[in-house]
């Protein structure tokens, strides 16, 4: 019997294996940020340990950096302290760090791929759950906690429990006007926030093969919202084309060796998955969440469900609570829900293709009076590219705010927050209570829907603008 992609990567990274213990896995790349790493470095210092492989570690200032006035010191003293602490730790332990305002800075899950640091067959970890994004390249990538980060810093390994594998096959072609964001929201609505628990998901099938790397990243990014440990897509020609020539990708003869190795990682024909799910791409329509977890979503043409629609008692109770928090009435058509804030950005949908799609919708149109739209590129490189293409002008002319790179309103750790009771259509990945600010109400959507919603003021697709 053959192996799945995930199993191949796992097996080639086991350093030590013993029955009754977790496997000890080697880590090829460890990404660190200002929020989840300070206590890990503290732990190292207390125990008198050093960083085993600083050159396999990359630091990034992304979670709480401001997206305006980045030439000035950070106003919030706590954020400033976290950024200073990361700088000191990276200097003390010899770790490469991208500072806010620098051209390589951005959300680490956007920057890793764009630099070519994220490569197939690697193990990648980060103290951030959306590390699953890197799985789009056929890397086994997952979020870890701070104690685990300390463990990786000290030993470049991680004790990990083996996982189960689930294939998620997307048959057919995606209809015009839908995106991989709609696919992943539909999948999570189908299998639930716990549906992927204990699994590594491998997305495959014709619709996935046709997706660009950026679309694949959006999907892998949100694997964690289905409860999965990681999401993966087999490396193929699309992957190679994306990586070739990137600054940190292999060059010359090493490229050929690497490419052959990467393509051989694909799941063997006779490999068996522990579970299988199939989705028909033709049935996918633009999706939106109505509740307070990413599984509470419906097609945009649908209505806010009633708690009575759910058979499971827990789902019923969760729906009741969510409707109360969201200030929504059952039966309300989603398209009539009024929104006051639109956020375009995050590691889910803050890449150049996402900005292009939104700009296309906004071209020649205006953001509705009274609406606040924030456009936050996922990285400084994305920002530069967008400006080269004139996308910033489209956003500004439409009345949106054009910002510097960072996590921003995705989690509201910097000043970019949604007001209490305000309603936001957001291209990010989490609609939890208070995620975008205390009392904030979040609807997760694709970039196209975010842009159309900004124009009409109610949840909309671009088709509704004509």
């Amino acid at each position, binding site marked *: 019997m053959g192996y799945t992609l995930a199993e191949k990567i796992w097996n080639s*990274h086991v*350093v*030590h294996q013993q029955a*009754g*213990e*977790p496997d*000890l896995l*080697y880590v*090829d790349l460890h990404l660190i940020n200002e*929020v*989840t790493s*300070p206590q890990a470095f*503290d732990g190292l210092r207390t125990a008198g*340990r050093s960083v*085993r492989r*600083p*050159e*396999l570690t990359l630091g990034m200032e992304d979670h709480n950096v401001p997206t305006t006035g980045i030439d000035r010191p950070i106003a*919030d003293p706590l*954020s400033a302290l*976290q950024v200073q*602490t990361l700088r000191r730790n990276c200097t003390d332990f010899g*770790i*490469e760090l991208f500072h806010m305002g620098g051209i390589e800075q951005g959300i680490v899950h956007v920057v890793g791929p764009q630099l070519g*640091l994220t490569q197939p067959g*690697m193990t990648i970890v980060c*103290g*951030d*759950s959306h590390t699953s994004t890197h799985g789009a390249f056929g890397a086994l990538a997952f979020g*870890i*906690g701070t*104690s685990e980060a*300390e*463990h990786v810093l000290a*030993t*470049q*390994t991680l004790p990990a*429990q083996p996982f189960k594998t689930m294939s998620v096959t997307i048959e057919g072609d995606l209809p015009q006007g839908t995106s991989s964001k709609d696919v992943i929201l539909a999948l999570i609505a189908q299998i639930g*926030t*716990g549906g992927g*628990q204990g699994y590594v998901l491998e997305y495959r099938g014709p619709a996935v093969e046709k997706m660009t790397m950026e679309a694949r990243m959006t999907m892998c990014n949100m694997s964690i919202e289905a*409860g999965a*440990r990681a999401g993966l897509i087999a490396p193929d020609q699309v992957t190679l084309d994306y990586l070739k020539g990137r600054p*940190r990708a*292999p060059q010359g003869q*090493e*490229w050929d*060796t*690497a490419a052959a*190795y990467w393509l051989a990682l694909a799941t063997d024909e006779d490999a068996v998955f522990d579970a299988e799910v199939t989705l028909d791409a033709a049935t996918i329509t633009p999706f939106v969440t109505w509740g307070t*977890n990413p599984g509470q979503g419906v097609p945009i043409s649908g209505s806010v469900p009633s708690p009575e629609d759910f058979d499971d008692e827990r789902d019923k*109770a969760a729906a009741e609570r969510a409707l109360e928090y969201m200030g929504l009435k059952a039966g309300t058509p989603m398209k009539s829900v009024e929104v006051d804030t639109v956020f375009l950005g995050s590691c889910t949908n803050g890449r150049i293709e996402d900005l292009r799609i939104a700009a296309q919708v906004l071209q020649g149109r205006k953001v509705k009076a009274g609406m606040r739209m924030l456009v936050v590129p996922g990285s400084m490189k994305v920002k530069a590219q967008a400006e080269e293409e004139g996308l910033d002008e489209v956003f500004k002319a439409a009345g949106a705010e054009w910002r510097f790179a960072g996590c921003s309103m995705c*989690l509201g*750790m910097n000043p970019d927050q949604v007001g209490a009771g305000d309603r936001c259509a957001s291209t990010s990945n*989490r609609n*939890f*209570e*208070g*995620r975008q600010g*205390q009392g904030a109400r979040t609807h997760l959507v694709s970039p196209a829907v975010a842009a159309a919603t900004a124009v009409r003021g109610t949840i909309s697709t671009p088709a509704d603008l004509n």
Partner: protein
Amino acid sequence: MQQFTTHTGTGVPLRRSNIDTDQIIPSRFLKRVSRAGFDDALFAEWRKDPDFILNTTPYQSGSILIAGSDFGIGSSREHAVWGLLDYGFRVIVSSRFADIFRGNSGKAGLLTAQVTERDVEYLWNLLEQEPATKLSVDLPNQTITTAETVINFDIDPYVKWRLTMGYDDISLTERHLEAIARHEAARPAFMPRCHV
């Protein structure tokens, strides 16, 4: 890491499922750079409500939390575990835990005891009717004992071993430094490196 064998304390029936780490510790508290003192941050939003269970007696001095399924979903923030520990919780009981949360708990010495949904329901009812009753958690035997009955819980055997011995992961891994060096020597040359 604090060793864990047995613990007796007050149970807190938190009748909610899908409790995500943004609720356990809102992101504004993640700006701290220390590892201690997160007790005030725990469930900070919910605690503003005077009727929230942790604002009522005797639950406010609880040390065993009984929550609905999919506890700890969402962000990987270990602060969620520190907040629960700092507040005084030693055990979380649920029918299902999010993977990362459970992993983080095991590292920091917080016991995640997995029981059936029926047992969660039973404990909720019991604790609501008799708030003063005490629960006893026995890790070696994997049991939760109430005045009336004994409930078995599941836990990964390795995590159980580590918790009962109070071992920390890094020292355990340092026994394998030679194997790590061997693996490093055999890594493909094309694998990327950061600039140091």
